[in-house]
């Protein structure tokens, strides 16, 4: 009997319905978004590789100078192989699934210099060169297609599954056949949406293979696919519920589109606004003011600060007096800036933690939030990843300052053996398993919610038999 329904569907739906345009649209959207994301990811990766190579080459030259000085092959000068010249590149490479979502990755810095010439406000250098108009518009990425476009297309291909029979007054006749209404509706829904999702999954799978960037790409894609399918299941259940709840196709469609507006746009926008208002981050301008105050204070009291630092390190003896005093001034003022701004950074972290906690709870108000968060995280374009990179870079700067500070202030050179113990920066990313573990609760929730709504829809459809 199911085969009969499917046969009827194939003729009506494929030939006359919106199936082909919907399938074409979803494939085109995913392919375009994947192509655009791939270009963006490759450009960023190439730029970061060049930056890293340039910096490592400069560092290698610095090390050679130090080796030559220590071995007596080169005449030492106050400027050569000075510890202030140590500069490690810090880069945040795009994640292996980075072409699937741009998320926050285009807004935040992806590289920095671990150098004591820098402080916490300048560690990432000048990076704000993107067009603000296009940044404000956000990217058209695969995550957007899954979260926003797919549900709309599901609504478009599904809202009239019973409309034809109801409009023609033929539903009673259908009900008199051995086919239960529930089976008719579910079969039609699964067939129509199955086609759409099959096209979407195939298009995404093709992207995974074509844009392959190695790493844990396939594991991340497995999570991506799981989230996408569960999210699709939720919308299928909602659509079934609306079909069961409303008798006319127009009301069914209006209810679905309204639900989409509320769940996919209104609730996420409201929650974002509430979370930001409830946990405001400290002002960046206040951060800047603190950096400036610390630097100004250091510049005024350089001699006193130097004396204090040397007193804290009685083991040090003053080295080459010809080393320019601004080396020491820069080091001390940046160190003061780091210490002065630490409370602000702590407040930033507290605000971010508050927002993250709010969102972790509030995501259950809208499946679109769950899907958006998890998809962007699976693609490695989430805000948390950007913040972890920034925090790790700041920690690396602290470690470098601690390691070379005594040598800089006492105007000594860092021994080669000590330099070789310094660890270059390497971003520690979360593993796919850790990301999947965090995603488990929301995914299970979404699955349970989908089943509940689906069961409710099923029950209403059964009751509709009596009504009709």
């Amino acid at each position, binding site marked *: 009997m199911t085969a009969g329904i499917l046969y009827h569907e194939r003729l009506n739906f494929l030939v006359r319905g919106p199936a082909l345009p919907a399938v074409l649209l979803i494939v085109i959207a995913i392919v375009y978004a994947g192509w655009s994301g791939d270009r963006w990811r490759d450009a960023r990766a190439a730029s970061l590789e060049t930056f890293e190579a340039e910096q490592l080459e400069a560092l290698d030259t610095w090390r050679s100078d130090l080796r030559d000085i220590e071995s007596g092959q080169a005449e030492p000068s106050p400027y050569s192989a000075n510890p202030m010249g140590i500069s490690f590149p810090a880069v945040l490479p795009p994640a292996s699934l980075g072409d699937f979502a741009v998320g926050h990755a285009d807004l935040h810095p992806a590289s920095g210099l671990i150098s004591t010439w820098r402080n916490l406000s300048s560690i990432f250098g000048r990076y704000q060169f993107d067009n603000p108009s296009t940044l404000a518009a956000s990217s058209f990425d695969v995550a957007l297609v899954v979260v926003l476009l797919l549900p709309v297309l599901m609504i478009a291909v599904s809202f009239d599954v019973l409309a034809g029979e109801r409009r023609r007054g033929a539903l009673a006749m259908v009900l008199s056949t051995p086919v239960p209404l529930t089976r008719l509706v579910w079969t039609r829904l699964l067939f129509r949406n199955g086609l759409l999702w099959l096209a979407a999954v195939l298009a995404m799978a093709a992207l995974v293979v074509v844009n392959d960037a190695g790493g844990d790409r396939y594991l991340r894609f497995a999570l991506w696919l799981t989230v996408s399918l569960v999210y699709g299941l939720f919308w299928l259940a909602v659509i079934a519920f609306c079909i069961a709840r409303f008798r006319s196709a127009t009301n069914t469609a209006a209810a679905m589109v309204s639900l989409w507006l509320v769940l996919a746009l209104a609730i996420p926008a409201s929650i974002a606004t509430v979370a930001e208002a409830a946990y405001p981050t400290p002002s960046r301008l206040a951060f800047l003011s603190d950096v*400036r105050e610390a630097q100004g204070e250091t510049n005024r009291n350089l001699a006193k600060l130097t004396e204090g630092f040397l007193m804290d390190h009685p083991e040090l003896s003053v080295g080459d007096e010809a080393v320019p005093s601004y080396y020491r001034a820069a080091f001390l003022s940046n160190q003061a800036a780091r210490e002065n701004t630490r409370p602000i950074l702590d407040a930033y972290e507290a605000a971010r933690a508050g927002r993250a906690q709010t969102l972790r709870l509030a995501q259950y108000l809208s499946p679109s939030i769950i899907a958006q968060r998890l998809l962007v995280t699976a693609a490695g374009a989430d805000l948390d990843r950007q913040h972890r990179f920034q925090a790790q870079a700041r920690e690396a700067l602290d470690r470098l300052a601690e390691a070379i500070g005594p040598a800089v202030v006492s105007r000594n050179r860092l021994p080669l053996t000590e330099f070789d113990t310094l660890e270059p920066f390497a971003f520690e990313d979360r593993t796919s398993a850790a990301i999947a573990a965090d995603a488990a609760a929301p995914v299970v929730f979404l699955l349970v919610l989908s089943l509940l709504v689906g069961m409710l829809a099923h029950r209403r459809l059964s009751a509709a038999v009596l009504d009709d």
Partner: protein
Amino acid sequence: MSSAIVKKDLLVLRRESLMKALLAVILLLLAASLAAGMQREQVFDKEKAAAELTDKAVWMNQGDRNPHSAAHFSRYAFRPASPLALIDPGTSDFAGLAVWMEAHYQDPAVFRRAEDGGELSRYTQLTPAFLLLTAAPLLVFLMMSASIAGEREDGTLRQLLAAGVSGKQFFRGKLGAGLRLTMTVFTLAFLILSAFALLTTPAAVEADAIVRLIGLFVVFSVYLAICVAVALGVSALFRTRQAAFLALAGVWVLAAVLLPRLAADVGTSIHPQPDAREVSSQLRAASYTFYEDKERQERIEQDLLREHGVATVEELPVNYAAFRLQISEELSIPEFERVYSGLEDRYSAQDNTARWFSLLTPAITAAKLSRGIAGTDRAHQHAFTTAAELHRRDMIKLLNEDYMFNAGNDDVPYTADATLWAQFEDFEHQPPTLGAAFGAYVKDVLLLLAWLAAALVFARSVVVRAVRHEVRSA
């Protein structure tokens, strides 16, 4: 007869419970976005005022110092907030709000507020402009989808025609009903928005803010009128409410949600965003223009010696090191201008590519005009960064000249004091008035008006054709 149709349609629409619920949700969101926007802008105003005070205090209290050393420390220029940012923050959160006016370097604007946004901030933002440009059209489409298709489906169109209603009267009545309801709700909502915006507007820019509010009202009105006309036309294309609604829902998703994002994305795919590393290198090279060119340095030195009739730099009446510093600044200026105009050209190429999509949806043009009139677009940001750069040049010159004319050439360390620091003027930027900036938006205004005309012509022709078709088939 048209007015009877208007009355009847308004009565029907008032009875739609789903419409009422959706309208209530959107109005509630509008109120919430207004409250959030007001809070944001008030906080920002306070932060900016505090940062300006600190910046000045740190500058004035830096003690005795060499003027060039002070020029390296320098001061910041802070962007003034637009009073209408609470209606449309536009691109302002994605553009830097402070420029470091340091020696040797034209820095980009830094500290973008969007970087402090939460996890969902790149997904969607709740602002009055977003609701008016994205959510309101859906309401209009829902309201209007059955306007003609419903009459055809129920057979009431034939009854109307039998009662002597002409196609034009029918069109005017349907359009009038849609416009009247849409504009009544919008006008009320906009008056409330405007009142709150004016409450937070400084007196100095109140006149311009009022002109800008009128401009915003016109833009949103025209945009919503286009939506009404398009909805009416699409409704007339179909014989059933269901088909008309589905078509309009599709138009909405494409025109209001997806195409604006796609347009920007295509712009950056064809003209990729600048590589920050490359631009930084170009700026660094620009700042070294003088120091990298030994031949030029020699020529300039010889010219100076000849001008003053002396043989060595020590005999010059000015400090030669300071002279070199100022020359290096002046020689870097055209190089910096080349780098930044290259960036502006790239931004324009991206925006112009996106503008082609304006032919597919009026939402892109309306959004561009909205942020332009609200004073929160790229052009207003450019005016700020340009003003900051001009101020930087003047102030660094002031410091270099003090060094040049007062330090002498006897190798004694020279320091200046607070008397000189006080001459470093505070940066005060007055954004361009709408009148002055309007030229940049003429094309978009014309495009939006063309959209209105096209939508009206489309609606009228489709409605009249549908009426004729009904008459023929009767």
